[in-house]
């Protein structure tokens, strides 16, 4: 019962966790907008979400571990996204590749989508609560 509930909310949870992580990466870029030689970073959200959910729902496909020091494939929320460097469209003299307009746009986009994810999450919970209530 409980793990069914968990499964139902798993995807939303993954999505929210990744959105929050991207939020941090983008705010790190904005914070370092004037740091010499800082390279703006980001990750491919769609690919990372696919990877995170695959490692969750892949179920039967687990890495064989012969020692407790080996890595397992199900990292829960701890799947670190693969960071990539943003290719700047205009270069700067100090080696910094943060372009404020682009970062701000991504930041806004990301936070809106985060709110949308929360809305879906909420709706999902409301839906399940309705299903659990008895008919009156």
């Amino acid at each position, binding site marked *: 019962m409980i793990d069914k509930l968990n499964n139902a909310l798993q995807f939303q949870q993954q999505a*929210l*966790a990744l959105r*929050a*992580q991207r*939020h*941090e*990466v983008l*705010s*790190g870029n*904005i*914070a*370092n*907008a*004037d*740091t*010499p*030689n*800082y390279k703006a970073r980001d990750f491919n959200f769609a690919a990372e979400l696919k990877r995170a959910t695959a490692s969750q729902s892949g179920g039967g496909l687990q890495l064989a571990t012969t020692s407790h020091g080996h890595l397992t494939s199900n990292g829960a929320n701890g799947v*670190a996204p693969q*960071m990539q460097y943003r290719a700047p469209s205009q270069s700067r003299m100090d080696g910094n590749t943060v372009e*404020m307009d682009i970062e*701000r746009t991504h*930041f*806004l986009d990301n*936070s809106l989508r*985060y*709110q949308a994810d*929360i809305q879906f*999450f*909420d709706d999902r*919970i*409301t839906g399940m609560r309705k299903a659990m209530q008895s008919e009156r």
Partner: protein
Amino acid sequence: MANFSIFDIAGSALAAQSQRMNVAASNMANANSVSGPNGEAYRARQVIFEQQLQANGMSAVKVQQVIESDAPGRREYQPGHPLADEAGYVTMSNVDPVGEMVNMISASRSYQANVEVLNTSKDLMMRTLSIGKS
């Protein structure tokens, strides 16, 4: 929104940018200083930012050091001035007021951007806290 590290990141940027604004203000205020405590004209200061890696791989920012500019001071011909040399020239500070003004505007824009980041993060966290309350 794990462990609130976003407030550290944006907060570090606010601190760094406000220090940069402080330095710019100090430079502007001393643009016409002829003599300082050491008997020499004021030297323009500049902050150096440095990326600071957090434990979770994100990067904050900090002021690594404040350097003094080595540019030669502006020399003005004022024979009557008490600090004039034999040729009648007074060595003023080496502050470039136009550059400082630009620096100040850039710092204040960056500061605003980070305040916006903080506000957005706060809103998102409040929304996150209210999941499932409807």
